[in-house]
């Protein structure tokens, strides 16, 4: 088949912090895609949060013009991918839009968990891998060792790969040459009926949804009626074009092999789901491109406005975020303790944190969130099965025949001296050991099956601290397994605080209950009466603490100069009371909720 010889579609894959976004910046500079004055660091990570955390949350794409050493002009389409397991599906769709992937490996760190996970993902999509060894400017850099490691561990030739420093710009030009040389050009399939893969979509308040696509077959132009093959929705194309680094560049059409955008007055991103195939109503393709999945949230939690009056604002904010994030789900729920709020579903804990932070920052909301939960399958004695993501809906234990919880298959990569520590941790988290492989003398791959609810809180943080930062971690969903579950209730002054209930494996109930009781005792300020803190399974109290009554809260000296200050203190105290959640007669500050969520080791 004929090729579109001047096009190269590629993405960049790497373990977190190996320099993906910095290399992308350099490629933009080298191809003059950005005026110097517009250049800012990590240009593609244009969300404030992405820059702060040094991660890529959304996929981004940009068209680069490059005149190669062979004297020919090339179009290089860079499709940046999110760098976190929560967004694996988005990564897979971005990779499906490419023919090649630049694999960045840190010259001192070598191969890490996500290096492997992302490489395997790329190989699954038949991508040509272009290895690049980055950060050669670091004193600890050892490019030769790392190149051998890549060859040994991943099995791709790497000894002649470019050694670069994205930070200083050294040798980055070689990467562009390698892309032109190694990444295969796309097939010319202009004559086929249109099939374009959606790898991202973004809501824009003026144009509606901007759909980012890779055209696999056929052509699309303004005026065509586009059809989403999974949802069946149809729209009239308003504009097609290419993504430039800082703007959109309209085009007459998009044709096979190209990467670009389509606008069609689409109102929500859920009408243009990542992974769906775009065809035309006039000449529809018979079969969609493979790989579309409607992805289901894995982690749920309740999100409540700290101030009940903000309920409507919270709803508006969630709706706006959902315009841009089809994987965020939410529905109203009511909690006896927290009032009106929403049960929200997320791809993972990072996704949850990102949404929470965006709600707080971009929409200026004060939130109270409940303990995150996974989806449990509860098999009842009447043979029916209920899926529970909210502990308050946990059925009466007498009606339960057995329960199942979701598990993941996890790979942990670390130097051999930490194997003991990692095994202890996984053991503690109810992991089932599946095997251990020595990747080379310095690195082992530990395989475990772990319950998802054991890793959604703080697993990664603990893993990092126990291995002094050396371990890396990757997982994928494996399915459900039988489990002994119980629901723990927290009682303050005898009243159940529904927002603090959670589901846990019965072996862990006592330890967890004791920790929570202690945390609450330390975080609930003393009030005018004694407050019993009890943790119970059903009617059985398994841990108990007492918050002693407060006896002293007084300004002893109040003379001429103290009156204004005293007045301000009084205002502050009143304000503080407003921010407390009142449960019966007990006032609980939001910090106490957070403290329960973030139980330390």
């Amino acid at each position: 088949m004929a090729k579109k010889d001047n096009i190269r579609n590629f993405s960049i894959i790497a373990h977190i912090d190996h320099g993906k976004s910095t290399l992308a910046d350099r490629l933009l500079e080298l191809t003059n895609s950005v005026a110097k004055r517009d250049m800012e660091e990590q240009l593609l990570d244009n969300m404030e949060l992405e820059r702060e955390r040094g991660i890529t949350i959304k996929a981004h794409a940009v068209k680069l013009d490059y005149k190669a050493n062979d004297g020919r002009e090339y179009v290089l389409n860079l499709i940046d991918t999110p760098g976190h397991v929560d967004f694996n599906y988005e990564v897979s769709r971005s990779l499906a839009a490419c023919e090649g992937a630049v694999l960045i490996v840190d010259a001192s760190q070598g191969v890490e968990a996500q290096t492997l996970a992302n490489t395997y993902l790329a190989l699954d999509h038949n991508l040509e891998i272009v290895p690049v060894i980055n950060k050669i400017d670091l004193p600890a850099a050892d490019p030769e060792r790392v190149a051998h490691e890549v060859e040994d561990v991943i099995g791709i030739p790497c000894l002649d790969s470019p050694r670069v420093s994205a930070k200083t710009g050294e040798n980055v030009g070689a990467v562009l040459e390698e892309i032109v040389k190694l990444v295969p050009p796309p097939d010319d399939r202009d004559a086929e009926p249109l099939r374009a893969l959606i790898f991202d979509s973004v809501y824009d308040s003026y144009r509606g949804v901007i759909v980012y696509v890779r055209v696999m077959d056929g052509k699309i132009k303004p005026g065509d009626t586009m059809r989403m093959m999974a949802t069946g929705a149809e729209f009239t194309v308003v504009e097609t074009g290419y993504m430039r680094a800082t703007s959109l560049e309209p085009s007459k059409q998009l044709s096979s092999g190209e990467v670009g955008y389509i606008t069609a007055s689409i109102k929500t991103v859920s009408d243009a789901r990542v992974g769906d195939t775009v065809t035309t109503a006039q000449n529809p393709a018979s079969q969609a491109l493979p790989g579309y999945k409607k992805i289901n949230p894995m982690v749920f939690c309740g999100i409540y406005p700290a101030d009940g009056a903000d309920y409507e604002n919270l709803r508006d904010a969630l709706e706006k975020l959902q315009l841009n994030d089809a994987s965020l789900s939410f529905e109203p729920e009511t909690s006896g303790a927290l009032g009106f709020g929403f049960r929200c579903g997320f791809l993972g804990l990072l996704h949850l944190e990102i949404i929470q932070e965006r709600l707080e920052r971009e929409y200026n909301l004060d939130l109270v969130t409940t303990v995150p939960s996974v989806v449990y399958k509860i098999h009842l004695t009447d043979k029916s099965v209920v899926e529970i993501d909210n502990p308050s809906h946990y059925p009466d234990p007498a009606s339960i025949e057995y329960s199942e919880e979701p598990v993941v298959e996890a790979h942990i990569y670390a130097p051999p001296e930490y194997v003991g520590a990692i095994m202890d941790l996984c053991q503690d988290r109810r992991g089932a050991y599946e095997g251990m492989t020595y990747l080379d003398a310095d690195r082992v791959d530990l395989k475990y099956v772990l319950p998802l609810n054991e890793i959604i809180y703080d697993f990664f943080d603990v893993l990092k601290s126990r291995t002094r930062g050396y371990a890396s971690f990757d997982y994928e969903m494996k399915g459900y397994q039988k489990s002994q579950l119980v629901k723990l209730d927290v009682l303050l002054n005898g009243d159940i605080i529904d927002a603090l209930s959670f589901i846990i494996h019965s072996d862990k109930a006592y330890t967890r209950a004791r920790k929570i009781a202690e945390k609450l005792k330390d975080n609930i300020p003393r009030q005018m009466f004694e407050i019993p803190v009890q943790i119970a399974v059903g009617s059985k109290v398994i841990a108990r603490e007492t918050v002693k009554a407060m006896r002293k809260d007084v300004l002893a000296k109040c003379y001429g100069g103290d009156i204004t200050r005293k007045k301000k203190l009084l205002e502050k105290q009143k304000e503080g009371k407003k921010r407390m959640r009142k449960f019966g007669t007990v006032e609980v500050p939001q910090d106490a909720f957070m403290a329960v969520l973030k139980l330390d080791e």
Partner: protein
Amino acid sequence: MENIGLYLHIPFCASKCPYCDFYSFRSDRAFIGQYVDAMRAEIIKKSGEINCKADTLYIGGGTPSLLDFSQISLLVSAAKNRFMEGEGEITLECNPHGVTREFFEQISACGVNRISLGLQSANDGERRRLGRRADCEEVKRAIEYAQKSGIENISLDVMLGIPGSTLESLEKTLGFCVSQGVFHISCYMLKIEENTPFYKMRERLDLPDDDTVADMYLFACEYLENRGLKQYEISNFARDGYESRHNLKYWNCEPYLGVGASAHSFINGRRFYCKNDAHGFVRKPEYICDGDGGSFEEYAMLKLRLTNGLTETEVKSKFGFGIPKSLREKAVKFADRGLVLTDGERVRLTREGFLLSNTILAEIL
């Protein structure tokens, strides 16, 4: 206009106590002289601007007893000439360390009729921990000199919750006060203020915990009351008729004028203060607005510091409306716990209520 209280601030100390966050510093005699002159000028200037009389004068600090007798005399006569008619209450704060009999005779002669002495503790170990230089004998002598000079109205400051203190050591201090036959005692719970040496070393201070301090407070109230020193404010105790008239103005939400660096005023419904800058004060006193005062909320906040509390009659005569119903309703909740006493006329806090007054005020106001 009703009579105001006049307050003069003397921001000088020989040394700074490690718990104190008041505006004060060590100065040379020459500057102290300039400062006193500036005070006199300002008293005269203010008397022209504010058309009212004062019936109390309070010279506080700092350490006013660091001034020469002649300087004190100049300040007192300026204040009397410009603001006072007849006999008023004239208080001078004194550091018992190093004061002489002559000093008391002279200040008594120029009109000072009340002194307030910083005792803090009758246990010398505790006093040293607080950075106080006088020992118990010196305090005794100061009281004796003052009494012999005709100043019978003497107040002692006592501190509760001193590092290392116990109920026993407190009992000894209170016993000392009573044995000296003073008519007034101020009993403050130590508060660790930011920007003090105590704040920096707070973890190592061996402070009695809140529950112990609460016990100390209740013990002190009981002990003093049984010996004729009746509580009239959260931290103040006096024989009948010897309550501090000047300080009562603060708690009754009445007007006062403060002269001197960092001194606060409440005049014609406005609160304002003079900048914390003694040198600036000598060049040109600068006043900073501190907002409106005298709202019902502020009035109630202050009145509830007093054992007399908030009365229907006074509220009505001052504001034209009675004690708000919502306040009464909320107060009843605390009455059930023994923190508030309330009847048709009055709402007031009990001793246990005083200890929790911040929380109670935040709830009922």
